[in-house]
Every structure is written in C-alpha cells, then in structure tokens.
C-alpha cells in the first residue's frame, strides 16, 4: 500500500517536472517555426509514421467503443421506451468525447512511446550530439516534425474513427438489437451538429500535440543506456496520458463555453 502511494506520488512529481519542460519545448518549437530551415520531408515522414502507427489501433478502439456504447444506451433507453434515440446519443458521444479521448490514449501508447524510444536511443548513442556538431538543431530536425505530424494526423484518424464508431453503433442497434435502419440514420443526422464533430477534432489536435511533446521531452531527457530508454518510453506514455485526461477537462469547458 505504501509502495503504491509512493509510486503515485513519484508519478505526480515527474509529471509536474515534465510540464515545465513541455512548456519550454513548445516555446522553442514555435520560435523555430518562425524562420527557416524547415525540414518538410521530415514532417512528411513523421506524418506517415504517425498515421501508420495509429490508424489500426484507433479503428479497433472506435468500432468497439461505438458498439459498447450503443449496447449500453439501448438498454438504458429501453426502460422508458426511447430506444430510437440510441443513434443520436451514440453519434454525439462518439464524436465529442469517446473517439477523441480513447483514440488519443491509444496513440500515446503507440506513437508517443515510439518517439521517446527513437529520440532516447539517439541521445544515448550520441546521435543527437552528432546532429548538433553538424550545425543542425535537434529541436527543428527531430521535435518539430513530430509535433506537427501528431497535431495534423490525430484529427484525421479521429475523423475516420468517428465514422467507424457510428457504424459500430449501427451494427449493434440494427443488426443485433433489431432496431430500424432508417430510424438509426435519421436520428443520427437529425441531431448531430457540426460543432460536435469539430470540437472533437480540435481536441484531437491538442491531444496530438501533447502526445508528441511528452514523447520528445522524455526522449531528449534520456540518460543511462538501454534502461534509460525504457524509462523514457514509459514516462512518455504516462505523461502523455495524464496530459490528455487533464487537458480534456479544460478543453471541454472551453469548447462548450
């Protein structure tokens, strides 16, 4: 029990330390975007990388979230005979909250950890020092492309995830529970607002940035060989996930306004 509390305390302290460094990295990244050089090919490479790494996990997450949520809502609505509303609720929950948050948590585990591992390995093998000695700024060359890539690609995969999640709801409602197909789609489109989707996409962009920030910060701070790289990857996942969950509250507050 004491070990558990100590571990929790440690995680909170680490997270607090990371926040400061995340802010510094963000500041440096923005500053370096104001003037050349721009490594566009690295941006592109990272976008493909993030897309490839996250699309499969996001699709599975979205499909099953949609299905489970539809199942739960159907059961709930059945109590007062409003099962035809299931489509609406699924669509709103999926686009506003479930896919952006769950998908981002999955991507923190996939892409955030990979970033920390890649950069961390480059640090401990002095490749980052080699970059510096050749007059190339590691922030511009390694961090900026990753920050850009996740901020752009997360909304893209979340958008696809939204569609898959709503389709998952359709599978459960229509194919499993025998609800009406026409009603499902009608109820979905009738009440789903553009702002539901866009607010989810804005969240996804911010979460993407957070994932890459923690991945890069933990990567650049790696010390002590292979073990250090292992610590960096776990740190990136924990930090990124906490960042997503906490910022989600403030973003939601902001976006609902």
């Amino acid at each position, binding site marked *: 029990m004491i070990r558990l509390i100590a571990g929790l305390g440690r995680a909170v302290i680490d997270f607090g330390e990371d926040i400061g460094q995340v802010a510094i990295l963000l500041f440096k990244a923005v500053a370096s975007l104001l003037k050349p*050089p721009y490594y566009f090919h690295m941006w592109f490479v990272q976008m493909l990388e993030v897309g490839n790494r996250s699309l499969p996990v996001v699709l599975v997450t979205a499909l099953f979230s949609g299905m489970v949520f539809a199942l739960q809502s159907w059961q709930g609505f059945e109590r007062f005979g409003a099962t035809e509303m299931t489509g609406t609720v699924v669509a709103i929950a999926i686009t506003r909250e479930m896919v952006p948050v769950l998908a981002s948590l999955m991507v923190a585990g996939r892409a955030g950890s990979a970033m920390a591992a*890649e950069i961390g*390995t*480059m640090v401990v*093998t*002095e*490749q980052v*020092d*080699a*970059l*510096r*000695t*050749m*007059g*190339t*700024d590691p922030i511009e060359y390694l961090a900026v492309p990753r920050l850009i890539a996740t901020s752009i690609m997360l909304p893209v995969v979340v958008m696809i995830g939204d569609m898959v999640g709503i389709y998952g709801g359709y599978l459960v409602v229509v194919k499993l529970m025998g609800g009406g197909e026409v009603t499902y789609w009608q109820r979905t489109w009738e009440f789903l607002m553009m702002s539901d989707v866009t607010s989810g996409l804005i969240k996804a962009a911010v979460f993407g940035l957070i994932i890459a920030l923690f991945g890069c910060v933990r990567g650049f701070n790696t010390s002590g060989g292979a073990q250090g790289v292992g610590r960096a990857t776990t740190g990136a996942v924990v930090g990124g996930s906490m960042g997503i969950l906490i910022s989600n509250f403030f973003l939601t507050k902001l976006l609902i306004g």
Partner: protein
Amino acid sequence: MDDGVFISIEGLHKAFGDDQVLQGVDLSVHRGESMVVIGGSGSGKSVLIKHVVGLLLPDAGHIKVDGMVVAGLNRTELNELRQRMGMLFQYAALFDSMNVGENVAFALRQHTKMRDAEIKDRVEEVLAWVGLEGDEEKWPAELSGGMKKRVGLARAIALGPEIMLYDEPTTGLDPILADQIYDLIIDLNERLHVTSISITHDMVSAYKIADRIAMLYRGKIEEIGSPEEIQSSPNPVIQQFIHGRAEGPITGR
C-alpha cells in the same frame, strides 16, 4: 592571424556532480597545427573536446575558437561555427536511420546548395579516402566497429572543415588501416591546413601525427611539447604513461 592561436582553452573547469573531471585546463592550438591529447581512460579527454564544439558548457573558464567565445554564441552563430568543424565521435554516433551514403551526405544536404550528382561524387570521394568505396548502401547496423569509425570520419570531413576533432580515430582498426587513417589526418593537416585536436591512447600514432602532444592528468594539462620533448621528458608521470608501465606515480606503485 595565420599561425596565430586558433583554438584557445583557458582555465576550463567541468564537474559532473561531485566528479571534478576538468580542473583548470589551459591549451592553445595554432592554425594548421595538429595537437594530440593523451591521457588515461576516464581522464576527461572526450569531455575536453566536447567543450570545443559547445556540446558541453564550462563550469568556469572559456573556449575561444577563431576569436569567438563558444559559450557566448547565439544559436545561429554557433551553428555557423559548427559547420566549420568536423567531429569524429569515439563511438562513431552514426545515424542508424540512414545508410552510409546518407550519413556522409548529411551535412552536405543540410548546409550546401550542391546538386544530388555533386553530393554523390563528394560522398564517393570521402568514402574512398577512408577505404570504404562502394559501401554507400550499407546500414550502420551491418558495419563492424572499425567500419563505423571510418564512416564517422568520412561524415566529419565531408563538408571540408577547417577544424577537425578526432576522438580516438583508430581504435578498433587493424594496424594497416590505422596507418592509412593517420596518413589521411596528416594529409588534411598539411594539404588543407586543417587545425586538429586528436585524442589517442596509442603513442605510435601520437608521435606520427602530432605537431605537439599534451597530456591530460588529474584534470589539468600535465605537460605539453613536441613528440621529441615528450619522449625525453624527465616527468615520471609522462614516462610511465608513454611506456605503459604498471608501476609509477599514476598508479601510485
């Protein structure tokens, strides 16, 4: 300022935690000179040259390169200065996401307007200098330690630097290859007037490539002089080190 002091290290102190590694190093290297730094394992040789490229910042003292204080440069100035230097890392530090050709071409792509064909020619040329012609397509993970070292050397000289920093350029190479690398280092110094600092444990190579040799001992430069002066030095620390004896003041026996 030809033949003037090109790199000057003054009163350099550096500690990592409680570990006082450098405790007042003074060293001047003249333009076109080949300086060799010798010293025991862990004496701080790598730490010393990392200060010259600004990878580490001094706790006290300063390093001037071509009249500029390295730690006082802004990011742009430092990057410009670094493009005039080449550094060979002790463990090569090749980019393992790039093949040999891309590693060597890296600085050329970043900092020159050379066309692809010109870059390809230059990469071929410097790889030939280190005896690795035609190995462009290999990946760092497929190379032996000595091959990595030579790719690292090719990468460091590709941009035609004025200053070269070699951290143990021939460790892990067979004697014949090592000799070719010494010839290359001498050639760069003599023909291209490159100023260099080389770190080595190997006294044969030190005598061969050095204009002057400096020994780092207990955080300071113990002695500095021409190869002949070092060889005939009465200092027992120097004598023990250059003859590789187990008994003497260094080991306290």
